[in-house]
């Protein structure tokens, strides 16, 4: 449905691209990346606000040179960009001034019901809370019947207590309004809840894109793994593999400590370097072969049974099924 081919954009000292990927119709794609990684610039390029090199195809048609007002793509900015010179209702109905909106009346009624903005329609936008602004901005974008809805960190300015209900609404939009969503965020929770597809973006490049579960559980590179919060990333040589430049990661919660060496799965002799007691668990830092520093989280009760002390010799045990190869 949306196909991006070799998209490239240079702005001041920042370079975006070359980016190529495809998004299926009626899917929810999340672009996950740190602040300053070029996510907004990518969305603006898709919307036609920026003028990148490369090609964009939508439903098989080359839209690279089509102006933003002819693309039928909705855009919601992080700070919502509601028009200050208009009331809530006028903001929502803005697109009707410039194009014919199919089933306009029913769509409006459905939107104000769905996004719970019925009571604030006549209000000046400067008197809205963050959550209200966000819902109005989404309503305004959907009211234009976009074929593709581009959301730029839509939840970052919303009170955390309302995030869950808003995420639920966002998820529903795809089917309810027959559209496709590209949502950019730096928040893994948002991504894992909402996305059918995730693209990881760092320094202007898409490093990995695929099915949400695959990306979150199987990072394709060390950069992606580190960004996704994977800990204990080491060369597979420790595990006895010969291949160079291959890495693995192990969740700190999946590491066990043994008093004696075990021959099953992976077991390495280690030295306990540091122990930090946290309310219900202990953080343990242990070195293997004096160089590789493992980080483990052990529940309080198990730690008490192990009776580990800093400087002790012990054995790290990793179950094969818990190893994530990168």
């Amino acid at each position: 449905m949306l196909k991006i081919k070799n998209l490239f954009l240079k702005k001041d000292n920042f370079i975006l691209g070359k980016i190529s990927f495809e998004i299926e119709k009626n899917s929810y794609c999340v672009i996950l990346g740190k602040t300053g990684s070029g996510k907004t610039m990518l969305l603006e390029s898709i919307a036609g606000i920026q003028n990148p090199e490369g090609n964009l195809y939508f439903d098989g048609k080359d839209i690279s040179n089509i102006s933003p007002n002819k693309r039928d793509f909705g855009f919601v900015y992080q700070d919502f960009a509601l028009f200050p010179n208009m009331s809530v209702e006028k903001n929502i109905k803005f697109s009707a001034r410039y194009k014919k909106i199919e089933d306009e009346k029913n769509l409006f009624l459905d939107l104000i019901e769905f996004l719970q903005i019925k009571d604030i329609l006549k209000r000046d936008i400067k008197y809205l809370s963050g959550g209200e602004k966000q819902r109005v901005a989404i309503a305004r974008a959907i009211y234009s019947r976009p074929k593709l809805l581009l959301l730029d960190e839509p939840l970052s300015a919303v009170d955390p207590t309302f995030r869950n209900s808003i995420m639920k609404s966002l998820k529903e939009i795809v089917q309810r309004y027959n559209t496709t969503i590209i949502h950019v965020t730096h928040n893994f929770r948002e991504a894992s809840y909402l996305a059918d597809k995730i693209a990881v973006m760092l320094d202007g490049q898409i490093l990995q894109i695929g099915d949400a579960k695959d990306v979150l559980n199987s990072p394709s590179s060390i950069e992606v793994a580190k960004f996704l919060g994977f800990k204990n990333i080491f060369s597979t040589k420790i595990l006895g593999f010969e291949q160079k430049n291959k890495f693995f990661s192990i969740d700190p919660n999946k590491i066990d400590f043994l008093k004696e060496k075990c021959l099953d799965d992976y077991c390495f002799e280690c030295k306990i370097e540091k122990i930090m007691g946290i309310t219900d668990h202990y953080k343990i830092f242990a070195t293997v072969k004096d160089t590789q520093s493992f980080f483990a989280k052990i529940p309080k009760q198990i730690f008490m049974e192990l009776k580990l002390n800093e400087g002790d010799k012990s054995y790290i045990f990793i179950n094969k099924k818990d190893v994530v190869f990168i």
Partner: protein
Amino acid sequence: MKDKSFLIVFLFLGSIIVLFLMVPIMNLFYSVGVNNIFETLQDKETYESIFLTLKSSFFAVLFVCFTGIPLAYLIARYNFWGKSILESLLDIPVMVPHTAAGIALLISFNHGYIGDFLSFIGLEFIDTTIGIISAMMFLSAPFLINGAKEGFKKVDIKYEHVAQTLGASKLSVFLSISLPNAKNDILNGALMMWSRGLGEFGAVVIIAYHPMVAPVLIYDKFNNFGLKFSAPVAASMILVSICLFLSIRYINNKV
């Protein structure tokens, strides 16, 4: 206690400049007297002169609204070669002596090819309202252009981007988003330009002594008849200007 002394010092310093600005005007009104001002305002020569001044300055503002506001938008929104030079050039009229500006206008629009062409299309500058408007416009346009430029800079460009994605063309975005949201700065700029035009003397007197705008009439009366005859005209002009300014500000705040 420290806060109080800070406020007292600042209030004292501020009141010095307020007094400096207000005393001459209040003194003028006081010395002329309210009855005299209203009598002067009924004098044909005076009210025609004041009306001509208001009208000429208004048309100057109107012309710059149609030409200077688009220019201000371009400067605020786009980066292009020579932008800084253009911005500096636009400020030149504010810096030059007004009589020098009058001479420059005289040379440009009353002589040579440009003068001939303007004369050919029926635009005469010497001793005409067109001449007065052009003199006022030359010296006061930067107030409106700069005001509009700052106003457009304050409008978040994301509003314009979103409006475009909602189907608005660039022109529609300008008319429905950029212009209304920069309205206050544009109006302030327009008022500044208009007021600057009302007081313009140096350039106008060189281009058009007749018909007499209020500043020229005040000068003429002072020169030929002395303070006693020029002061009522000056007070009348100031009173009319103040009333108009207050009305416009009041309407703007209400809208």
